[in-house]
């Protein structure tokens, strides 16, 4: 049973995400979008988890990598004819070329990784409060540049006409890829070394683990996955502004991670699906929904609910819904063990 435990840990999140995708495919087009959003959220939150969960360092900057990845994938997949008209000031390299869907993901991942590496080299020396503020600064700088620099994008305007290739299938496939990579990383020696630094940085350094380097690897990987998730996102929505992958997303993804459980992959997945579900349901309820009786919530309720959920989780159960543990079938093992023990016990009567 111990040998197959890692498989079980990976299977849990994968099966859950796939199940959500499958269920979503049976619903109407209007409802399917909520399932898609939930699955893309999983990708974003798992990308965040790869860094924050493994290193224990808070980062407000992953949305920048998602944003940059989204812009890269978006701009390069808008048909050239449209770009010449809508984005005349952009660099010719960007304006006069277009790439296919699959390549846009490669590009987004590469750019996310490169940007994260660039930013991470200086920043990974910081911890705690300084890291939080510094990564917040990165978020602000990225947003500022994307909002103003019209040579790399629409600036303050809307980037539209992006091919909407992310349906349930692409979303689910993408999320599974992100989960797979995250799982692989945390089981490698690199991942385990980083987790050691989370538990006790001094002890880890004493055995020769370079805290800076381990964090940098995770940060770069997280950047790559965030970029990838950004591409998933932009191909789902079909349009993009600088404000879309910014403060609200930062808050929501952190909320999802915390509510699910910061220190486990299972927590990231559960948190993302749960909060996204609640968010979608309440968003629907804000414009009126029938659940046996008519529910019509005032606008803004969904944000209140998510905020309250996050605050309550932190106060009452800081380790999250999953308690920060990976998915396991331990209860199944325990039941089996009990049966085996009961059968092996010598019978009292007749001995």
């Amino acid at each position, binding site marked *: 049973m111990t040998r197959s435990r890692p498989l079980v840990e990976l299977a849990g999140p994968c099966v859950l995400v796939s199940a959500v995708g499958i269920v979503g495919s049976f619903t109407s087009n209007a409802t399917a979008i909520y399932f898609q959003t939930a699955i893309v959220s999983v990708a974003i939150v798992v990308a965040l988890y790869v860094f924050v969960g493994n290193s224990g360092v808070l980062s407000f900057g992953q949305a920048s990598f998602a944003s940059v990845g989204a812009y890269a994938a978006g701009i390069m997949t808008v048909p050239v004819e449209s770009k010449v008209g809508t984005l005349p000031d952009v660099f010719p390299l960007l304006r006069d070329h277009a790439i296919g869907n699959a390549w846009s993901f490669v590009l987004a991942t590469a750019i996310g990784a490169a940007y994260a590496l660039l930013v991470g080299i200086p920043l990974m020396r910081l911890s705690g409060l*300084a890291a939080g503020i510094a990564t917040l600064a990165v978020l*602000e700088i990225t947003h500022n540049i994307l909002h103003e620099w019209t040579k790399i994008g629409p600036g303050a305007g809307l980037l539209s006409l992006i091919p909407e290739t992310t349906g349930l299938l692409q979303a689910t496939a993408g999320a599974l890829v992100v989960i797979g990579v995250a799982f692989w990383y945390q089981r490698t020696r690199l991942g385990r070394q980083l987790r050691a630094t989370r538990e006790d940085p001094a002890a880890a350094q004493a055995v020769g683990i370079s805290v800076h380097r381990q964090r940098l690897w995770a940060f770069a990987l997280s950047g790559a996955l965030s970029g990838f998730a950004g591409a998933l996102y932009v191909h789902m929505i079909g349009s993009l502004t600088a404000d879309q992958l910014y403060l609200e997303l930062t808050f929501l993804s952190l909320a999802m991670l915390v509510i699910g459980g910061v220190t486990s992959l299972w927590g990231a997945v559960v948190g993302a699906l749960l909060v996204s579900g609640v968010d979608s349901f309440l968003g629907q309820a804000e414009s009126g929904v029938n659940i046996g009786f008519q529910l019509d919530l005032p606008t803004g309720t969904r944000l209140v609910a998510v905020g309250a959920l996050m605050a309550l989780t932190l106060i009452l159960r800081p380790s999250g819904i999953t308690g920060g543990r990976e998915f396991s079938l331990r209860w199944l093992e325990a039941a089996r063990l009990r049966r085996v023990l009961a059968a092996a016990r010598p019978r009292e009567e007749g001995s």
Partner: protein
Amino acid sequence: MIVAVVDAQNLVDALGLGAIYALMAVGIGLVFGVLRLVNFAYGQLIMAGAFTLAYASRANWPTWAAVLACFGVVLALSLIMEVAVFRPLRTQSPAVMLVATFAVAFLLQSVALLIVLKVQGQLGVPASAVAQLSRAVTIAGVDIRKVTIVSLVVAVVALGLLAVLLGRTTIGLQMRAAATDFTTARLLGVSANRVIALAVVLAGVIAAAVAVLLTARTPYVQSDFALHDTIIVLVGVVVGGIERLWTATLGGFAIGFASGVINGALPTDKSVYLPSALFTLVILVLLIRPAGLFARGRSSVVERV
């Protein structure tokens, strides 16, 4: 070449903003000192005060009543925050506390948005209660808004009173000790609850005062009132050095003054990249001196590997 024009008017206005940010820095620094908690939701206390002023002015209350109500609401909310959020979190790690106050900030902001949309049907409420402070007087040929003068006076008086409280009273001494080493202070007999309550109340009073001043500067109150300011002040406080009250206050003042001067001095089209420049500077400072620009030596909260 960027030609920056800095004139007296700009300087004075920036001083006013610096004074307000210095006050906010004190509020944040006081709570941090005794609780080791960065209250991201501090801005929401100010927002609540601003909304109180807004609704009071809609109901045509006299100014003094509106201001009094503002103080009352902010103090009540501060104490609720202390009991419902800070106290249960006291045993948690700094990271959890950070994210928790972040969540509370978001929650309060969302609640405010909800209420405003439901009641007003629009995003914001105008607040005219303290509008007369927005008017300007001319001193030595410079147009100074009254609120700037009031801000400076309030800041100087408040900081002065605080210095006296901390330096010369017993409870102030206990607060200073608690901010350095809470456990040892407690085993000497210092009451944790009393010291914390005092810090929270003082921070609340300051937040209420800031609400009045900011509402005078910006008489339209939305649910994200003071959010931008709080983020800037937090950055300033960490850059200045959050461990000690005076370095935090200095950081808050500096960033407020700098923002005011730069914003006023640069022509609009050149200043679009100002946030990037500012935040790059922040990152540089944090890399060189993670404990803060004005701090001495290493700190215990902000580690560097």
